[in-house]
């Protein structure tokens, strides 16, 4: 359980940011969604603190392409900051439905997509090996130990 994003990201690194906006200028999500930009998230974290961003649904527009880190002239690890924000946001219940569904599927089956009869038949037609159910007790055991129940219900 984390209480602050600064447990996962060194706040000192943010002071390196001089708001050049190369990250936002390179960001595909910012291109598609006007209300999103890594520079803006950095600024709000610095000036207003983590509470100003972790409840904001728009942080999830990130495509995780990592181009912001690639291009930051100050070598700030922006994806690491965003991952810290996402993790705390998820814990507080700010987690997009589709991500929650995927995480839930992984916890219940070990896979993020449903393997149904149609899939199995299609694979059989191509003489591909069957997708046998995974050892879910083992997987769930690991996820219980790592505390996944902080964000979703585990059996």
């Amino acid at each position, binding site marked *: 359980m984390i209480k602050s994003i600064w447990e996962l990201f060194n706040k000192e690194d943010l002071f390196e940011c001089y708001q050049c906006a190369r990250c936002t200028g390179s960001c*595909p999500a910012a291109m*598609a969604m006007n209300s999103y930009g890594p520079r803006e998230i950095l600024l709000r974290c610095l000036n207003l603190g983590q509470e100003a961003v972790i409840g904001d649904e728009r942080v999830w527009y990130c*495509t995780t*392409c990592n181009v912001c880190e690639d291009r930051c002239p100050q070598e700030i690890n922006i994806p690491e900051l965003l991952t810290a924000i996402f993790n705390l946001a998820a814990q507080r219940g700010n987690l997009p439905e589709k991500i929650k569904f995927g995480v839930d599927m*992984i916890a219940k089956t070990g896979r993020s997509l449903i393997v149904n009869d149609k899939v199995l038949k299609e694979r059989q037609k191509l003489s591909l090996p069957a*997708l046998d159910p995974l050892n879910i007790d*083992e997987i769930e055991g*690991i996820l219980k130990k790592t505390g996944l129940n902080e964000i979703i219900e585990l059996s």
Partner: protein
Amino acid sequence: MKFAFFLGCVIPVKYPGFEKATREVMAALDIELVDLPFSCCPAPTNMKLAHYDSWLALAARNLCLAEEAGLPIMAICNGCINTLKEVNLILKQDPQRRLQVNEALEGSGHQFKGSIEVKHLLDILQKDVGLERIAERVRHPLQGLRIGCHYGCHLYRPPRLMYPDDLSEASSYVPVSMDHILAALGASPTQYSRKFLCCGSALGTNIDAQPANEITREKLQHMKKHRIEAVAVACPSCFTQFDRGQMMLERKYHDGFGLPSLFISQLLGLAFGLDRSTLGLGDHRISLNPILDRI
């Protein structure tokens, strides 16, 4: 050569034809693939964002399965390669994290040792098999087809984790493997603006497909400008954007791109002259006929 075959979640379920093509191509190159009971990698676009520690431990379990079999991993999806390579590197370098993960793994009987490598199909083809051997195996050259490569972000970003040994002096890196492989197959890999722009996939799968498709459209427009005839991808999520996404874009904008996209194994299979019924050519929404007629 022998690898543990990391299928991931998307390819075996949504695009089994790509898996079939990969198995056939690797058999033609005398590479043995072993199936192990891997779980989801888990993806850098969901589990990592939602719960970092769970992401780390579940990825470690997958790495352990390969370690116990004494095999390096071959991945064919950018999400998988991103997670597995990053976690492998973190756990090899950070004793604190390794301790924490091995504690979580204790009840499962696995322990991370750091004894294997993880590679994407593209790097196995370029570096382990070699371009010469690939060229020797070609029976139907790709006739100078103007193919635009889309590598996909998670394959190589961040380069300090994905390609730490290949960084330039400025610590940057962009991949070239797919262009070289396609040239060996007789195609004309064609450059285009915004080649290293994201396809938009995660925005679509996590939030909303429409804005994600707008990012794909930006790429398609540049490809068309450079008279590209087909897109080559090495990731099923990128494929979804260029194929399914393009279909949705067509309904909205009537751009008429008609730009087919192919998974790299399909292009290898076509050039090797493998039985076309084993190459998953029916998995496409954007017609492949204009290029299939030429090869």
